[in-house]
């Protein structure tokens, strides 16, 4: 594969950023610029690291200068939190304002190809969701999940940006809960606790995607033009109860008022949000139609169930390996 010769990746220390850089380095045919607030531990020496703080007031100018200087041809923007932090304001600055800075810089430096890491959580868990959400479904997010709301805002910003830059090749990838032996999203980490309190009376279908499949989709989107929005999901669905039974986790269904009240304090301490912002994702459907993504990036190598098994078994073996 040819593709762009110089690629910049923001959020080098996120899982996707790190793994994508590793993957793109593979054949050594291109130059990689990694951007982050701090230098990652044990960075491959072929990667050019540039310190950039997206929250800094002049970040857009800094990034623009950097992109021009390095003659970057494609930019992968994955400087997003994989888990929300209690500092909601910093998260907002980093994700929403930071993305705006990146977009401004890309426009100034005429970087044509942009790949944005979003998430299918932006559709929001709703009682009236159809069983399979397509990419055209409105992004309703969840009012109590600030990181999700940030991404919704970033995506709508991006749509506005696209109107003034119609020749840009922008790919938005929306993976669902990503998991595998090396990474688990926050929601998945919750599901792999030994005892898992769930919402009584609800057993939604969950969807997972394996980390390798996500990285693969990002690689393909970076190397060849795939303008548009794509859900990146595994095939098949797994009911919450079945997933927990497979993993040997104990499910403790609690009545909604009790669960939401009892978890209010810990949820706020950990995510800065009301518990509904997380538990509603274990209550209503938000399964997505991955057909468009599979067509563009190829068949995923793991189904939702296989991905779940792969993550759980790796977790089990962590004590021995």
């Amino acid at each position, binding site marked *: 594969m040819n593709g762009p010769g110089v690629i910049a990746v923001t959020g080098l220390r996120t899982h996707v950023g790190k793994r994508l850089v590793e993957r793109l380095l593979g054949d050594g045919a291109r130059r990689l610029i990694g951007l982050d607030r701090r230098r990652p531990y044990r960075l491959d020496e072929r990667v050019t690291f540039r310190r950039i703080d997206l929250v800094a007031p002049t970040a857009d100018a800094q990034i623009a200068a950097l992109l021009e200087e390095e003659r970057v041809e494609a930019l992968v923007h994955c400087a997003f939190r994989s888990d929300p932090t209690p500092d909601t304001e910093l998260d907002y600055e980093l994700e929403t304002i930071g993305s705006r800075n990146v977009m401004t810089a890309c426009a100034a430096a005429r970087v044509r190809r942009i790949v944005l890491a979003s998430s299918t959580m932006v559709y929001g868990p709703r009682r009236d969701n159809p069983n399979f959400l397509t990419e055209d479904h409105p992004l309703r997010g969840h009012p109590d999940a600030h990181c999700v709301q940030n991404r919704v805002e970033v995506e709508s910003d991006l749509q506005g940006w696209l109107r003034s830059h119609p020749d840009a090749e922008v790919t938005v990838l929306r993976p669902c809960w990503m998991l595998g032996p090396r990474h688990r999203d926050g929601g998945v980490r919750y599901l792999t606790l030994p005892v898992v309190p769930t919402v009584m*009376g609800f057993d939604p279908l969950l969807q997972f995607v394996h980390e390798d499949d996500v990285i693969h989709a990002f690689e393909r989107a970076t190397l060849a033009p795939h303008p548009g929005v794509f859900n990146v999901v595994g095939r098949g669905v*797994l009911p919450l109860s079945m997933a927990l*039974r497979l993993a040997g986790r104990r499910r403790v269904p609690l009545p909604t008022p009790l669960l939401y009240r009892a978890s209010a304090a810990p949820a706020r301490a950990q995510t800065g949000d009301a518990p509904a912002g997380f538990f509603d994702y274990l209550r209503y459907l938000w399964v997505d139609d991955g057909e468009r993504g599979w067509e563009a990036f190829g068949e995923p190598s793991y189904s939702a169930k296989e991905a779940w098994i792969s993550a759980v*078994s790796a977790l089990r073996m962590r004590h021995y390996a």
Partner: protein
Amino acid sequence: MQDTKQDEFVELEAALESLRDEIRCRFPASSRRYGTRAGTPEATVETPGRGAVLVALAAELRERLATLGMREQSAVVDEFGMDEAALHRAGPVLDGLFDTWWRVAVHGLDRLPPTGGCLLAANRSGVVPYDGLMLSHAIARFEPSRTRPAFLVDDRVAGLPFVQPRLARLGGVRACTENTLRLLRAGRRVIAFPEGVRGATKLFRDRYRLQRFSRGGVVRLALETGLPLLPVGIVGAEEAHPVLFKAHRPARAVGLSYLPVTLTFPLLGPFGLVPLPTKWGIRIGEPLALDDLPPDAAQDDRLVSRLTEELRVRVQERVDRALGDRQSVWE
């Protein structure tokens, strides 16, 4: 302050992660399955020495151990959450309801197309979607080799705690255009209730009088997909839970829109939820003639509403026939 602490924590995690990576690199065999993409050709060992065999064996053992108790479980649901194992477990109960409790008499199963999807439009009766369950059970028993038809459940029921997950395992799908279209395109047969919520909330005195069909969605879907649309009359379900009147005020207090008051509910408490053993009849009619229509018929609102009305009349006909089959509510 907090920020630096967090950064330190992240740093520590990263260090740990890279340590793990290191270990995986040292023992490539143990990360054989997870380290590489499945499907990429791996370096094959041409002449396996004793060491290689041992490593492979250890990796195999590790893999077995890691997934112990997981691969054996046949945890599979279809994409709408229908669970064959759960259906199998529920089989005796469904059979009991079908044969003994309601003694369902079914006519016209041979009118179903032998292959491909189709839409069945039935009259809706009762709050609990027993009717959909029984019709899909009748069809599943008639053609056990084919996938069970899905029955659509209206929003109000589809959002109910406890009810929703169970219905989904038994083949219930929330009624909306996207879901129906997806099911039909996948070749599934779909049981729809065009009366919608109005049908489910009918009073006993209005039984078997079909309500206005909402929006003509069923007809539109049949036209769009070009699949047959069959009218179905279901009789007996209305008397299983005869709703005398709807109590609105006490229901608001618990967050429901109304509370159906039947002969036995809420008088007998939870026992009042047991449906009465009425005599059931199901009649499946000839498919509607939709073939010689213009291709853009689905966009023609007047045509759609005319066909919807025709469908309503045909369903009413089936209901009346089925009512004529019975001597009384019980026989």
